[in-house]
């Protein structure tokens, strides 16, 4: 069994990179990719800690549900992205600031 810290360091890195991507990328699809990274970082944590209680599979079950939710999110998110594209003719998140009004 590998030290839990190593998993956790990688998860922390993935999480931070995901955040960076979400904030800095101007393309909505790239933002979606960043969100997938965030989810995977949390998944990694769950799996890592599940190692300490191998008899139960609670952590792994959580990972499964997270994946399911990620699927849903990706599907709906991409549908919305397509729709927004159709409407604004852009995939630049900055231009979509209707929320302000």
């Amino acid at each position: 069994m590998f030290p839990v810290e190593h998993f956790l360091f990688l998860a922390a890195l993935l999480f931070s990179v995901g955040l960076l991507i979400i904030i800095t990328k101007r393309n909505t699809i790239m933002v979606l990719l960043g969100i997938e990274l965030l989810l995977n970082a949390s998944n990694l944590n769950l799996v890592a800690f599940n190692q300490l209680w191998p008899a139960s599979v609670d952590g792994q079950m959580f990972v499964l549900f997270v994946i399911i939710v990620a699927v849903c999110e990706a599907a709906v998110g991409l549908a919305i992205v397509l729709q927004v594209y159709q409407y604004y003719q852009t995939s630049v998140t900055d231009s979509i600031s209707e929320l302000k009004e």
Partner: protein
Amino acid sequence: MQSNITYSTFFEICLLLSVALPLASFIVSFAISEKYSWAVSITAPLLLLVSALSSSVVFFSLHDDQPFSIAWNWFVISGHPLTAGLLLNNLSATMLLVVTFISFLIHFYSIGYMAGDSSIRKYFAMLGLFTFSMLMIVLADNLLLLFVGWELVGFSSYMLIGHWKEKPAAARAAKKAFILNRIGDAGFLVGLMLLWTHQGSFALNQIGLTDAMAAWQTAASLCIFCGVVGKSAQFPLLTWLPDAMEGPTPVSALIHAATMVAAGVYLVIRTFALFTPIALDVVAVVGIITALIGAFAALGQYDIKKILAYSTISQLGLMVTALGAGASDAAFLHLFTHAFFKACLFLAAGAVIHALHHAQLQAHAHFDVQDVRNLGGLRKKLPVVFIVFILSGSSLAGLPFFSGFLSKDAILTALISWAGADFSWQWLVVGGAFTVTFLTVLYTFKMIWYIFFGSEKKTSELSISAPPAVMQVPLFTLALASLWIMVSWNPFVHTRWMNPAMEHSWSVTLFSIVWVIMALATAYFSREKSFYADVLFNAFYVDRLTDWMTKKIGLKVPAITITLDKKWIDGFIHATAYVQVLIAHVTGWIDRAFVDGTVNGMASFVRGVGSVTRTFQNGKIQLYIFWSIFTIIIFLIWTLL
């Protein structure tokens, strides 16, 4: 609510009806719209008829029985509860009957007299209010409530005298009546205050319970008498009454007979226990002066209504003299009989004026129909009015077989017994009273002569029609009421079925019969002579006296007070004003610098914060995320480190 239970509910309802219906008439008359103003001349007399009928029920069930009183709590002032209530005894019940009865007859008469008047609603409404407020005076069981009615009478008489407000003389007369009444009322109010301070109660049945003839009692009674002087047109506040003739004639009849001038005499009778001997002497002197002035002035007048007005003043003077002599019974008897025959005289005079006025309008002739010199020989053209005028005039003059004779006799008897056997100044009063009765016969029959006998002057070519039935019925009713039957069965003894306790002496009766016959003879022989004199015409210049009083004194006092005002009070006010302005400036500066500064500072701070936070709310999702992450990180650092 406390009331003695000896009287039935029916009695109470009748009492309520008789008081409330005039008020209802007032309200209904205003409630009826302008379009249906003709309806007022039906509703108002009808309501008054019911009122008169129910008051007669009240009168007959109460007469010679124990007094009835009913009271409600009105308000409490500094621990003293004040009640408002009704107090009915023989006196007030009689007065109630007289007021409602005469008021009803005058309402009835007004249907004919005021037909076609443009503001008939206001007229009948004010008649209703007038009657109601008089009833308030009559029935009130305490002086405060009475005072309210007193003022209401003043107000409604003001409205009625100035009914034809487009006539400047009417407006002026209304104003004069109002102002002179106010002068008297000021005295009345002071009297009320005196009474309150010394007795702590306004209740009529507690007045004079303290038998100490204190100085305050004299002062209070004289102050109340001041109000009487104003309301009952006594010397020196008598000049408003002749001027009040500018109002419609039925109103004059109402004022003279039942509602207004009678209130003064009635008030003195009601508060008689308060009057001390000194006060009574003052009352007697004022009364006899008034009576003499009125009688002499009546001789010098040519206007029918003015003659009647001065005769009222003189008769009121007689009543007040009787009051001063302590004979309140006699005074009230005269008030009672006077109400009927004077109302009748006024209505008859009104009928003459009305008939002539209409004839004038048809013939397009123009002369003063109220001037007796223009009239004459009307007995053929207006026989009905002639008969009525003779009957009521005889009563006024005090001829035997008329009510006036009996009441006048009562007064004279009382005066003689008051004066005593020895000669004193009181005999001057008695002499004055006899002079007044003599003069009364004189002016009454001269007036009748002028109007109805002799040859027709300016009226000869006019075709005069008799007054309508609605006017004749009240005339005849009142004329019958001026017969001796009203007072007693015996035409020479005034100890009537109403008040058997009064003294009576046959010598006085005989003497007054002789006296009246002498006066009649004088009147007959001097029928062509005119007693005109400037002094008489102007009623001894009492008008100028009041004018002088009001102008000289009335203007001097304000002038003094004005200088006082300017120098001291204004100076003080200015000083305080300067101080206030100074304080205001200082506080204003503090306001601007600190209070406003704080507020403005907070506002700009908030604006700054707002503009800073506004930059976050720019609709950029990624910045939102950044800020939320940033916040979470800061929060975590804060908690973990």
